[in-house]
């Protein structure tokens, strides 16, 4: 090994790991601190601005409307916003006998607060050791007094209750609720779910003032004609809005009584009746619709009696001429003439017309208490009897619907108790040919204005009332009875441009000996009811109703 080769070269050592504050390293450190600071800042900001939604959620839960309350039910108001039903909270007081320390003392204290209660019953209830209600819907004064007793056995329960300020006035429409606040009849039942959900009150089409006036007249004539019951419906012919629907007898909803007497049924919707001659309007309208007759079509040599199977069809008015025009048949309420028109129409056409105006099948309505017209088998004799309104049944509500369609120009309507927006009313579907309405309305007016007509007592000045009467004997097993009748008057007004249809039905009225009739078409008056027909009973009631409600309808609903 040579020395030359062992040369060691010494080079200056440069420490590559010497600490230098490089620009990059410095930034990393700054960013770390800044980053941590930034994270803290963001968290604090997030918290402060409540991105976690804590504050907002709290507010939301507090601002929830009382809908979440158990047993909540929306109020019900009439078309003018007057309360028909209002939910208010009430307190029920119960006693738990197990917790009573001194029974004697408790009874003495209770007697001071509620002096009219039966304390022998309360005492026996206390002995039974079973929880019982002492007072439901306690007044504020008595609540304060009873709570001041400081007895542990006295329990208070907050409940929601329904108040009906109009008492009996809308009993059939509104219906009842049970103790668990579940609707059991009327709108309370059919709108049960909606009433529990909606925030705003449910607005109806009915008018409290008109309902009151109509009910008052029905009550008055209930005693005059000693009827079993009565009903009246007032409806807007153009949109089916029911302004009034009264069925008498009725009941006070505030009493919360169980109504089991069938006489208290809603005659307007649930009562299924054979309505008689009011159906003749439909037969003639069907004839005009089919183009088979005109108002001046003559029917010559009409018999006074017709036999069809077991049935004998005869004229009520024995003086009715044998030659009549279509118009005269309706004005004079000719049975045989109506049969002839029915025969011209034949089963299919008459049936289809009656189906079209909705009198043959069950109506789809806002309340569940609706009657179903009794189904029957069509035949030659059935066609004849149906033509003048016998052997066919329907409800007064469906009769109102049928007359409304005929009067409004032939447009389909759906009777309703719920107020809708005006946009919904604009959709119109024609179901009867143009022109039929005008012809029928003119004849209906003549029934009221002419001497031959059967409804002269409804000729109230200023309202252009038109209408058709119907007197029907009630069906019994094996035939009909003359003793029990259903007298109906189906009216429309004003006939030049119909706006309202009104049905007045008296169930089993009797003649009155003392009632004084004031003639409308001529001067003078008449004492006592000469005949138990619609012309002398329901027409008089309808006339009196129109006289009373007319000014309200004419002034209040002028814009509608």
């Amino acid at each position, binding site marked *: 090994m040579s020395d030359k080769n062992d040369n060691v070269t010494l080079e200056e050592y440069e420490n590559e790991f010497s600490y230098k504050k490089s620009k990059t390293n410095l930034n990393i450190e700054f960013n770390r601190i*800044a980053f941590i600071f*930034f994270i803290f*800042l*963001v968290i604090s*900001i997030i918290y*402060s*601005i*409540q991105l976690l939604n804590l*504050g*907002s959620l709290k*507010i939301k839960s*507090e*601002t929830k409307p009382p809908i979440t309350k158990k047993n909540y039910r929306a*109020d019900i108001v009439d078309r003018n916003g*007057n*309360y028909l039903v*209002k939910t*208010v909270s009430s307190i029920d007081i119960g006693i738990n006998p197990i917790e009573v320390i001194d029974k004697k003392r408790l009874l003495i204290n209770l007697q001071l607060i509620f002096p009219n209660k039966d304390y022998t019953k309360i005492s026996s209830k206390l002995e039974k050791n079973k929880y019982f209600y002492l007072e439901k819907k306690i007044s504020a004064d008595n609540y304060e007094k009873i709570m001041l007793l400081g007895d542990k056995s006295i329990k208070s329960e907050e409940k929601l209750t329904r*108040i009906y*300020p*109009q*008492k009996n*006035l809308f009993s059939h429409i509104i219906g009842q609720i049970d103790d668990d606040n579940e609707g059991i009849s009327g709108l309370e039942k059919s709108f049960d779910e909606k009433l529990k959900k909606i925030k705003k009150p449910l607005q109806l089409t009915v008018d*409290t*003032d008109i309902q*009151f*006036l109509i009910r008052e007249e029905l009550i008055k004539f209930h005693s005059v004609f000693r009827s079993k019951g009565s009903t009246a419906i007032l409806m807007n012919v153009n949109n089916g809005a029911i302004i009034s629907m009264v069925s008498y007898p009725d009941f006070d909803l505030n009493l919360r009584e169980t109504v089991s007497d069938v006489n208290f049924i809603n005659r307007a919707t649930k009562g299924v009746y054979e309505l008689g001659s009011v159906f003749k309007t439909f037969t003639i309208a069907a004839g005009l619709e089919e183009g088979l007759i005109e108002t001046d079509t003559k029917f010559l040599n009409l018999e006074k009696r017709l036999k069809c199977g077991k049935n004998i069809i005869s004229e009520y008015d024995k003086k009715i001429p044998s030659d009549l025009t279509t118009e005269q048949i309706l004005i004079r309420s000719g049975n045989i003439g109506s049969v002839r028109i029915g025969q011209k129409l034949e089963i299919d056409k008459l049936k289809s017309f009656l189906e079209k105006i909705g009198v043959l099948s069950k109506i789809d309505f806002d309340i569940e208490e609706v009657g179903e017209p009794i189904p029957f088998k069509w035949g030659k004799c059935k066609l004849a009897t149906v033509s003048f309104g016998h052997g066919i049944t329907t409800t007064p509500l469906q009769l109102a619907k049928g007359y409304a369609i005929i009067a409004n120009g032939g447009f389909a309507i759906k009777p309703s108790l719920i107020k809708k927006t005006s946009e919904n009313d604009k959709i119109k579907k024609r179901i009867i040919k143009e022109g039929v309405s005008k012809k029928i309305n003119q004849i209906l007016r003549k029934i009221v*204005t002419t001497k031959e007509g059967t409804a002269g007592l409804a000729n109230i*000045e*200023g*309202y*252009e009332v038109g209408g058709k009467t119907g007197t029907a004997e009630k069906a019994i097993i094996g035939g009909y009875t003359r003793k029990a009748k259903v007298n109906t008057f189906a009216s429309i007004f*004003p006939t*030049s441009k119909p706006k309202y249809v009104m049905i007045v039905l008296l169930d089993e009225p009797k003649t009155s000996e003392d009632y004084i009739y004031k003639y409308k078409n001529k001067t003078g008056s008449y004492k006592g009811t000469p005949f138990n027909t619609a012309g002398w009973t329901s027409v008089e009631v309808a006339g009196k109703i129109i*006289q*009373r409600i*007319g*000014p309200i309808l*004419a*002034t209040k609903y002028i814009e509608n």
Partner: protein
Amino acid sequence: MKKVIFSTIFILILATSLVKNSTKEIEDKTFTINENIRSLKSELGDVLLEYNYLSSPNKLTQYQTQYFEKNLIKIDVTKIKKLNKKNSQIKISDFIEKTR
């Protein structure tokens, strides 16, 4: 560049925070007002119920017979008149035209 992004985000968050805080104040005020309205609504409902009951047709007729000697009269609709004011002249016409 990063500084710009960070500062933008920071400013945005700060601005959001300020806006949100002021919104919260408004929310609180709205909440208080809503609460006050709710109690007023409930009170109004009770007063309206009382009013509807006391002014119901049934009650009014009852008061009428109780406090007034004269009976209520029916209005004849044909006697209702319309007043039309045109060029400072008042024209009176029938509210409802007389029918046949």
